[in-house]
């Protein structure tokens, strides 16, 4: 069963972890830890949706833990990422901007705009009312616009100022 889960969910979970972590290597660590957690203490899944929801939530928790660990070491996350592995391309400012959002927005934006889930489906996956997901999508977009506007230079969207 676990090998099926690794095959089926790895790509999505790795991308999801990257909404919180700037290093792909850290994202791989987070997802591996989720799978290890699953075989160390297997959960009875009611159905495929329950399985997917558990994996998504566990990945967000692990990615959050890794991010907090880096922040506790007083390392700016980008520096921590350099130590942990290669950075994402500098031009990926949109992804960087999403990562700067509070964590509750990043996951819903990813699940909606990349995976194509509706607010209702995201609500089921994250255990939230659909209305809350709708609010987070709206506020996430709003904050993202602000970040993209105010931090364009830092995000690499525009050439550096001299």
């Amino acid at each position, binding site marked *: 069963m676990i090998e099926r889960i690794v095959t089926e969910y790895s790509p999505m979970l*790795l991308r999801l972890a990257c909404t919180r972590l700037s290093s792909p290597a850290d994202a791989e660590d987070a997802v591996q830890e989720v799978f290890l957690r699953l075989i160390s203490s297997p959960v009875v899944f009611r159905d495929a949706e329950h399985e997917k929801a558990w994996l998504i939530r566990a990945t967000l928790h692990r990615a959050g833990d890794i991010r907090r660990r880096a922040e506790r070491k007083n390392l700016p996350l980008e520096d921590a990422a350099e130590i942990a592995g290669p950075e994402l391309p500098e031009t990926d400012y949109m992804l960087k901007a999403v990562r700067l959002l509070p964590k509750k927005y990043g996951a819903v934006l990813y699940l909606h705009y990349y995976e194509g889930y509706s607010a209702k489906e995201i609500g089921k996956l994250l255990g939230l009312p659909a209305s809350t997901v709708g609010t987070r999508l709206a506020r996430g977009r709003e904050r993202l616009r602000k970040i993209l506007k105010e931090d364009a230079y830092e995000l690499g969207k525009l050439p550096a100022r001299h």
Partner: protein
Amino acid sequence: MNWENYRHAIDSISFSADFQDRTKALLRRTVCGEQKKEKYAMKHKKFWRAAVAAACAAVLTVSAYAAVRWLTPAQVADYLEEPGIAEAFSKEDAVLMDETRDVGEYKVHLLGTASGQGLSVLNPDTERSHTYVVLAVERHDGSPVTMDEMTNYQLLPMVAGQDDNIAAELFNQRSVTYFELDGMVYWLWDMETLEKYADRTAYLAFYQGIAPSMFTMAEDGSFSVREDYTDPCALFTLS
């Protein structure tokens, strides 16, 4: 905002090409790797459930058991809407106990075991007999325990002298359901195979961490917690 850019950026993230292969190999090693030991002489014992029943009968009376403040195993199964398991815990051959271990800031109570075929609604299996184990976790200082706190803890059945195959079998065939009620967290564990190993000492480990590297197996096949292991960990002997 151009969400196409966002999707493109995500698609362009480069993960290790061998991530899935490495991960599957790691998972296989985790299941078996820590159990790699020499083959030891087996310790023959009588049927473990009967032994547990006899030991518990000697020290516990029904009234003493009922006097404790937590749920009974049957109530735990009822709460989880598992009437078949609840009934099994109400029968005479269920083993009710209160073995307590200190695990870090918690007290872990092993409350009972029961076995049967086709009992579970959530995890139905009419072909093989399953063993169900109920534990309750409370904090030493009486403050509430939450389910989130339990996410780093694992339960693992082991049998004396187990080889790689048995370890992998036990490792793969467990499942868990747990819930929080009145400041305690209750665990219902479902395992398939313990009765098969009735001639061996059976253990239930509760520990923090991922791999069961905190246990050591003696030459006679018995398990104990490694002396130099300092993280929270407890080993219950079921027979």
